[in-house]
């Protein structure tokens, strides 16, 4: 599905991501963890095209996506959520999802004018389903800015799914959530996998990532220091040192 080869991104002298090799297989849930500033969010920005690569190649479904701008990568099937929530605050919940329906599938199904200038009738069921998945059906006419924090996170997820992604990049989706909310998020992630969505989960909250990921890669100072099943990662001395410092 996704294949990063020797991917690097330097900001001046800072090597935010340096020679990263990462593979995500079809239908997998891969966790990407690491201390603050280890290059996790930069990696997401490189995959979506928000930042240009310094060097290396990213293959998505066998194709080099380096030259594609962000909106074309989305059409190809890569959607994301943001670590610091970026909803369209002055648009309603419904509009946030509606405006994100830009998948190739939608483009094939509806003509240009019906997609951009047509009414809501043709998409009503689909958006209702997405809102129900996010537990937001009753808030559909609320402005996104007026939602509670947890609801905003769920709306970000629903908005990302509106593009019918094949690969979903979740950038710290559990940040600031309580353990009940984390439990619900875990259920949502698992149900997405059952629908065939591949997930790259960037996360600080070990409770979540250890519970759902098939495989975990650990970043430190822009480099991958370990990769393996959750149990192996928990036992890895290098990982413990990166997180806890010293010689643990």
């Amino acid at each position, binding site marked *: 599905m996704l294949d990063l080869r020797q991917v690097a991104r330097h900001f001046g002298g800072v090597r935010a991501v340096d020679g990263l090799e990462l593979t995500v297989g079809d239908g997998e849930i891969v966790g990407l963890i690491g201390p603050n500033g280890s290059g996790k969010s930069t990696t997401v920005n490189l995959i979506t095209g928000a930042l240009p690569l310094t060097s290396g190649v990213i293959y998505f479904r066998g194709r080099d996506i380096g030259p594609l701008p962000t909106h074309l990568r989305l059409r190809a099937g890569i959607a994301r959520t943001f670590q610091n929530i970026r909803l*369209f605050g002055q648009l309603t919940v419904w509009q946030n999802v509606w*405006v994100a329906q830009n998948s190739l599938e939608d483009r094939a199904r509806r003509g240009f004018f019906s997609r951009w*200038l047509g009414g809501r009738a043709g998409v009503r069921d689909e958006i209702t389903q997405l809102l129900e998945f996010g537990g937001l059906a009753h808030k559909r006419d609320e402005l996104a800015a007026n939602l509670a924090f947890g609801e905003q996170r769920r709306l970000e997820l629903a908005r990302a799914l509106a593009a019918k992604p094949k690969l979903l990049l979740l950038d710290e989706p559990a940040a600031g959530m309580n353990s009940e909310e984390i439990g619900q998020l875990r259920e949502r992630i698992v149900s997405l996998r059952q629908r065939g969505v591949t997930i790259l989960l960037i996360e600080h909250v070990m409770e979540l990532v250890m519970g759902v990921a098939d495989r975990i890669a650990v970043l430190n100072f822009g480099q991958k220091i370990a990769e393996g099943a959750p149990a192996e990662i928990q036992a890895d001395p290098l990982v413990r040192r990166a997180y806890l410092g010293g010689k643990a």
Partner: protein
Amino acid sequence: MDFYFGLAQLVGVHTLLGLSAYIVLLTGQVSLAQAGFFAVGAYTAGMLTVLAGWHLVPALGIGAIVSAATACAVGFPALRVKGLMLVIATLAFGEAVRLFFFNFDYQIAKGDIKVGPLGGEGFRQIRFFPENGWGTLEVMLFMWVFVLLVMALLWWFDRSRYGTALRAVGEDEVAAQAVGINLTAIKVSAMTVGGAIAGIGGGLYAHYTTHIEHSSFNILVATFALAYPIVGGLQSVFGTLIAVIFVQAFLIEGLRELGDWRNLLFGALIVLAMNLRPNGILDARALAALKRAFTRGRNA
């Protein structure tokens, strides 16, 4: 009565000018180029009726197309600059257009007089309306047909996914791209539609004043174009209309009795209006209240 018809003409033209800035503002772009597009539409339509002898309607259409094409051409380089830099870049464009018309001569003899644009002297004798015997009322109605068509179009946009995408880009460009919106297409299309609207407004303006010159399209006009949607609020096209009526009918005409005090009060009242209603006269809350009142009236 003619006074009120004349005022309605003025309000109509300025509404088009304001709406041309409204759609561009929705995408978060602050453009001072609208007076330039207004000028392109005015000169193009004027030359077509006066020099080529066309009917006004096709002349307005061509004026809108030329103006839209100009706006589209401005839209692409404008993508590379944001915020204050865009303000300066579009200001420079507007001034370039004004100076072009300051130096633009193209006159032909018609009977024993010469007609057409003559540099700093301006473009006189745009006499389509008087030559065809249209009265003030007819001219006003003709103009308002265009104003209402444009308002209906923008009102429809606001309800469509296109309008939602414009607002999404205005709110957060990074997020908009991340959900698959083509930033270039959205920004340039908004600029182009804005250019077409300004072009129609300029064509109408040229014909009802019968005389245009470079100073009719200066920075003050560009500022008014921006001020209308901002004072009126970006929630709805009606905000712009209300702001034009507030400024042109109330502040400028209504306070005429006050003589020199008017200019002072004009500025003060604009500042007061913006302080009392920082999100525009017709903000989200006012619009929601109106909507509720309207639906209640219908149900009762």
